[in-house]
């Protein structure tokens, strides 16, 4: 009981720390790919420190304040419901659909706050974000559905447990491919970073946020990175379980492997990001509803065929 509570407290702190670290590393990687030197890998920590300790914060109204708070609430809640490597905090109660809906709280709260700011750039950003969400949800949902149909369960813990023999990535490669494409948009990386496109809409929804608000958003973002990647790992990469023995040591190893997988997925997205231009939002929409959806449908048909007959 005490151990669980300790984990419960430790996990968010650890995850946000690692998230910020990864973001620093990715800036470095992007810079190297683009033949720049780039900021030091600990730049993100400096930024967050600075933002939180800023003397003057500017707010508009109480709805505006909701944004960052909801962003953190949504991400923290979701994180507690997904299995993270060896650690299953509340995931026995969790359910894939519940998790997918909990994930939305953060975005919706963010959109509320951005809308309340009254800046048209924020409105455009929110519109793009929601449109993009509708775009990538189509292939993503179909590919996740393939997994749920194949294992005939919607419980995340069950799905992870059933992959102990073989990862879903190997059984359902097409679905995994599509889910990774959707992950690119979930991370908000190019070519799907229309919502925050800095050069067009002055980083979109967060245009009005500064100081502690922006700091909270950065923390939420770093947790979100783990949540989104972790969801993919749980569904397709066997939950990052390398060792199936009980015992705290193995559990820690499993957790480290999970973090490694998150880093790998994130780096993959960053590498794509570094060399890609940005789609227009309607191009992105058409893209997602065309090829990834077709591939996802084929994957779903395959999963259905294998599991029913």
């Amino acid at each position: 009981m005490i151990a669980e509570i300790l984990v419960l407290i430790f996990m968010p702190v650890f995850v946000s720390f690692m998230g910020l670290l990864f973001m620093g590393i990715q800036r470095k990687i992007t810079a190297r790919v683009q033949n720049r030197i780039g900021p030091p890998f600990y730049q993100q920590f400096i930024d967050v420190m600075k933002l939180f300790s800023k003397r003057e914060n500017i707010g508009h109204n109480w709805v505006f304040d909701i944004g960052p708070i909801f962003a953190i609430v949504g991400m923290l809640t979701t994180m507690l419901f997904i299995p993270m490597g060896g650690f299953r905090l509340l995931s026995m109660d969790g359910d894939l659909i519940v998790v997918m809906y909990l994930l939305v709280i953060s975005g919706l709260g963010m959109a509320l706050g951005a809308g309340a700011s009254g800046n048209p750039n924020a409105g455009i950003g929110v519109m793009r974000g929601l449109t993009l969400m509708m775009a990538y949800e189509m292939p993503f949902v179909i590919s996740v559905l393939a997994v749920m149909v194949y294992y005939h369960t919607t419980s995340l813990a069950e799905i992870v447990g059933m992959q102990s023999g073989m990862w879903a990535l190997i059984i359902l490669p097409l679905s995994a491919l599509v889910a990774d494409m959707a992950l690119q948009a979930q991370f908000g990386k190019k070519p799907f970073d229309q919502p925050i496109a800095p050069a067009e809409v002055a980083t979109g929804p967060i245009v009005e946020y500064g100081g502690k608000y922006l700091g909270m958003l950065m923390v939420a973002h770093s947790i979100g990175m783990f949540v989104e990647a972790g969801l993919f790992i749980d569904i397709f990469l066997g939950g990052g379980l390398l060792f199936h023995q009980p015992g705290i040591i193995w559990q820690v190893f499993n957790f480290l492997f999970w973090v490694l997988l998150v880093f790998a997925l994130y780096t993959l997205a960053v590498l794509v990001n570094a060399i890609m231009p940005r789609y227009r939002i309607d191009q992105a929409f058409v893209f997602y509803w065309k090829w990834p959806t077709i591939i996802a449908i084929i994957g779903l048909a395959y999963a259905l065929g294998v599991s029913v007959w």
Partner: protein
Amino acid sequence: MLEFLNPMLRPEWMISLLFIGALLTYFAGKVSSALRTTFAIIFSVFVAFLVFLSGSRDVLTYWRPSASPMGFRFVLSINALSWFFALMISMVSALTIVYSAGFGKNTEKDNAFYGLNLLLMGAMLGVVFSGDMLSFFIFWEIMTLASYLLTTLAGKRAEKGALNYMIISTAGAYSILIGMTMIYTRFGTLEFSGLASVMGGADPMFLLITLSMLGIGFAVKAALAPFYVWAPPAYSEAPDSFTPVFSGALSKLGPYGFTLFMYGIVGLPALAKMGTFRGISDFGYIIALLGSITAVIATLYAIAQDDIKKLLAYSSISQLGYVMMGIGIGTSIGVAGGLYHALNHAIFKTTLFMGAGVLIYTTGSRKLSDMGGLGTKMPITFLTMLIAIFALAGIPMTGGFGSKWLLYEAAIDKKFVLIAPLAFIASVGAFLYSFRILQSAFLGQLPERLKGAKDPSPLITIPMLFFAGLLVLFGIAPGIPLGIIASVESYLGIPALNVSTYSVYLGANFGAYNAFTVMTVITLALLVALALFFIAKKSRKVGQTDTYMAGEVPEHHVDLYLHYSMNFYRPLERIFAPYLRNRLERLYDAFGSGYELISEGIRRIYTGDVQHYVYYVMVFLAVMILAGWWWL
């Protein structure tokens, strides 16, 4: 304590109270408007209270008029299913009457408005309480007529939509009548209790035809896929204080009809005889598929609307598609999800239409792009609508999540790979259009002319707050409504759902949904976030127009440019426009004009010359005689 009310807890009492109340209200309006409004509120709220008290006790009433030549018995009964729907209907209707009293208009039309509202409430209760098809049909028609008249009260603009509604409803009613006649000629009884014992043994073909005939009539009310064309104009043009009932309560009669006939009368085993698809009947599968298709199409239309009532109208169609999907699937989870979603939809859509009415009253416009920034001016309206929108979008913590979750689980459980993705996408679309309301009406910049906006009178806000409270309550304790639904399911002969107050357990293959855990975790996370927020330096409030504009001075074009809600989803609309140009309406139009063309041709034989008519008569006579000789 309320023992003295016991003799009144009978369906015929409630219905006749409302019908008498309708008359009294109408004539009281001739005397004084305050008296009329008081009457309307007292009658509706009292009957709603009676319905609430009557619980699910089995009250069966037979009533046969002395001079009934065919010997039909009119049966009224209260059972678990009808009580569930009656509760929903009476709650929505009564509170909407309270709500409309808050606007305090005093026109001659208001007499008719309140009278018809009570009449409609009585007719709807009659539909759900009736225990035989004849009274079902009679109340059904009273209901259609009353709602048609109520819609036309909005004035000239509503007439076309109301006429559409009436025509399609009449077609649906004829369809019901045909199905009813077929059943009567086959079995010789119209009582549900008698039919329930014989319909199960009927041959599948007969069942299919009768169920389809009845189904067309119900599908019209439920605005299911090919029959939804009446709904957007009728919902959006109806009077603002009637639309909550129209969309919240009246549309639920379609799902009620399906549930009653598919499960209450025909029953699962007989349905299965018609052929099954992965464990559920083909008929149910088609209904479910139509429901999910409706959900997606209506969602796409809703995203593109700038008119708040039209947006909500399309949203209603889409949500009813969900309900039909759940009822069509027909498993324990599916029916529970469908009924639960019907309840949730009744509550949140009523709240949203009420809020829309307030917004239209305040701003004088139905266009979302004419509103903006009202969130801080009208906090109660904003909060209630926010909760309703959360429920609509299915965010956990509100009732809407539980029902959507059940529906997805039902689809995935049966591996319906066509239905499940459609339902998911419609749900994502729901985020889009519901956020459009928030963004355009409550967030962003406040136009100059709305500076004086404020929350409406308590008569209006109390019903909205009540509904919002219900949604939150259902979000924390889904066991309360689901417990009632479980008893409905066992009444219908479907395996009942396993629920406790806070959690739902569906079986080994599914994760349980424990609303209490989710709630606790969210609260904890909220505490953490709030702590983070308040530990840091306090922020300074600046004006709403004081935003980052890349060096522009914003004063001159505040209204026009700073509020980004005109053509909100333009890119998306551009993509879908070629596919969604009102195809179905055009199909109906083509049918109508073709019919007109044929009639025009037939009309040509009336030349206006009397002698030609004599010729027609004689030629016809000669042909008949010759044919007679030939055949005999």
